[in-house]
């Protein structure tokens, strides 16, 4: 194994040899290796956030016809560092009556839940934290720990707005977990394994080609799972004070944001791993480091799409969001599972490319039919514009009298 083909694994093997040569037993050497590996990966992820924040602010700035950060360093590249210094030295206010353990555990848990997703993702053919046989289920389960973190934040900070925000956020997250889990069944079915390494290796045509409907549902649901625009109504900064994190300050508040930015990036590389072929690309099998490059290029393309999604869509209303989930995505994902299972089984004798085309056509038919049905449903249920009394900021109702009918 040469250094240039696979530098990361080369260093790992070298370090293992070093530990063995100073007389450590294999058990301890593995454990120490694990600790160092986990530290490097997790710390790398956390420092990566600094870059992500710059990237996103710059891009969002461009989308909104602004410059974004552009004073500190080349293209404003050092701006997040300055922000980090500032947030590190801000006072950490602990309000009265908080539940100390819950209050302090919540920001830690919300970052840890995202970081743990890095443990099972294959970044290249030879570079991954660990290959557990239930990888894709692990990703979903760890996301559930983030919800516990949100509940801890909302309840622990002894504030009714925080509590309401937390419950709303959790209701949103668990709702969108349903289509997320069900559409994750499709790659498992096509691969015959839950291990993410196997799922990447099995994608001879990428699964987005085989099952675009499942990929679309998975993408929308994972954007909603990150809890950012247009699904960010639990913490809509421009409309309400904040959500579950209203009582937090300084770095504890910052940790929620670190978790959010990291989750957006993590969601995009999970999408890449599951549906866009992960590290696969020309030559990546022979030269693993090339796979790493492909992986990050694909991830940044999806991340770019995610930021575009954020920057160009207006925020959902909560009833619209719940309707989108329960009345569109969930039934659709169940139908997709059934159709793919049936079609793939009926054409079991066909060649691979024929099955790919058949599945693709089946998926597209589902999407078209669903689109028609949704259009019909929306037409019949949309209320007439102007049928209700609407709150307009006119001089008459600037001072709202009780019972005047001008309420939102």
């Amino acid at each position, binding site marked *: 194994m040469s250094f240039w083909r696979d530098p990361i694994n080369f260093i790992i093997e070298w370090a293992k040899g070093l530990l063995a040569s100073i007389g450590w037993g294999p058990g301890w050497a593995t454990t120490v290796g694990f600790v160092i590996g986990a530290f490097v990966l997790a710390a790398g992820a956390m420092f990566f956030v600094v870059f992500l924040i710059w990237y996103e602010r710059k891009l969002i700035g461009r989308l909104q016809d602004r410059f974004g950060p552009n004073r500190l360093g080349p293209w404003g590249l050092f701006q997040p560092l300055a922000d980090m210094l500032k947030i590190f030295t801000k006072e950490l206010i602990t309000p009265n009556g908080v539940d100390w353990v819950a209050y302090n555990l919540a920001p830690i848990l919300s970052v840890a839940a995202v970081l743990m997703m890095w443990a099972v993702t294959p970044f290249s053919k030879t570079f991954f934290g660990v290959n557990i*046989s*239930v990888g894709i*289920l692990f990703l979903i389960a760890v996301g*559930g720990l983030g*919800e516990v973190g949100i509940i801890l934040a909302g309840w622990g900070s002894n504030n009714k707005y925080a509590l309401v925000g937390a419950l709303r956020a959790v209701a949103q997250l668990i709702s969108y977990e349903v289509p997320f889990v069900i559409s994750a069944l499709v790659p498992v079915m096509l691969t015959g394994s839950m291990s993410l390494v196997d799922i990447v290796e099995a994608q001879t045509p990428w699964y987005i080609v085989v099952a675009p409907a499942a990929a679309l549902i998975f993408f929308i649901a994972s954007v909603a799972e990150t809890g950012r625009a247009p699904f960010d109504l639990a913490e809509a900064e421009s409309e309400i004070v904040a959500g579950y994190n209203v009582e937090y300050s300084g770095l504890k508040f910052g940790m929620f944001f670190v978790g959010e930015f990291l989750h957006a990036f993590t969601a995009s590389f999970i999408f890449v791993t599951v549906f866009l072929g992960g590290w696969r690309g020309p030559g990546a099998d022979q030269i693993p480091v090339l796979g790493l490059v492909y992986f990050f290029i694909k991830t940044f393309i999806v991340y770019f799409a995610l930021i575009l999604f954020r920057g160009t869509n207006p925020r959902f209303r909560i009833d619209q969001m719940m309707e989108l989930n329960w009345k569109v995505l969930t039934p659709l994902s169940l139908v997709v599972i059934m159709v793919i299972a049936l079609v793939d089984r009926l054409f079991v004798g066909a060649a691979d490319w024929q099955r790919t085309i058949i599945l693709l056509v089946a998926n597209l038919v589902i999407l078209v039919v669903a689109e028609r049905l949704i259009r019909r449903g929306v037409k019949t249920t949309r209320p007439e514009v102007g049928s209700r009394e609407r709150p307009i900021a006119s001089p008459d109702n600037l001072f709202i009298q009780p019972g005047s009918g001008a309420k939102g």
Partner: protein
Amino acid sequence: MSGLQVVFLIVAVVTLFSGVMVVASRKMMHSALWLIMTLLGVAILFATLQAGFFAIVQVLVYIGAISILIIFTLMLTRRVMDEETTQVIKGWWLPALMAVILFGLLAGLLATWEDFQGMLNELPADVENLAAFGTALVNPAGYVIPFEVASILLLAALVGAIYIAMERKEKAE
């Protein structure tokens, strides 16, 4: 004592302690949070038994769904939140005595079993054969009846719970 045994002891102690706190906490919310801790400990115990699938399912179903459902219910039922007084019945020592006696009986009974001291060795890596499990679930010679009955049970739970929980709303309309 091997490393795995140390891990087991720590996890078991933490799990049992949180279990005690579930039944001993005064605030209902603390009780629910300790329950999450217990469930996590049980998940780690599953992982030490190399049942990776069930460890993850434990986190997914119990922590991700059931405990959140319990917490939502706590938010819906008001008096539990401000009730700071005792949460146990007056003659609580009787159940305590019963529990201790039952534990003694169970431990004594188990100790007479010949395989009680059997060692659990590390299994080969691919032994948790999920494909075989999945095949058995839909195999008519295997467990297809429990599989379909499970879906009917879930359907019944869904319909029943929605009917019960939303009943008053319907009367009001």
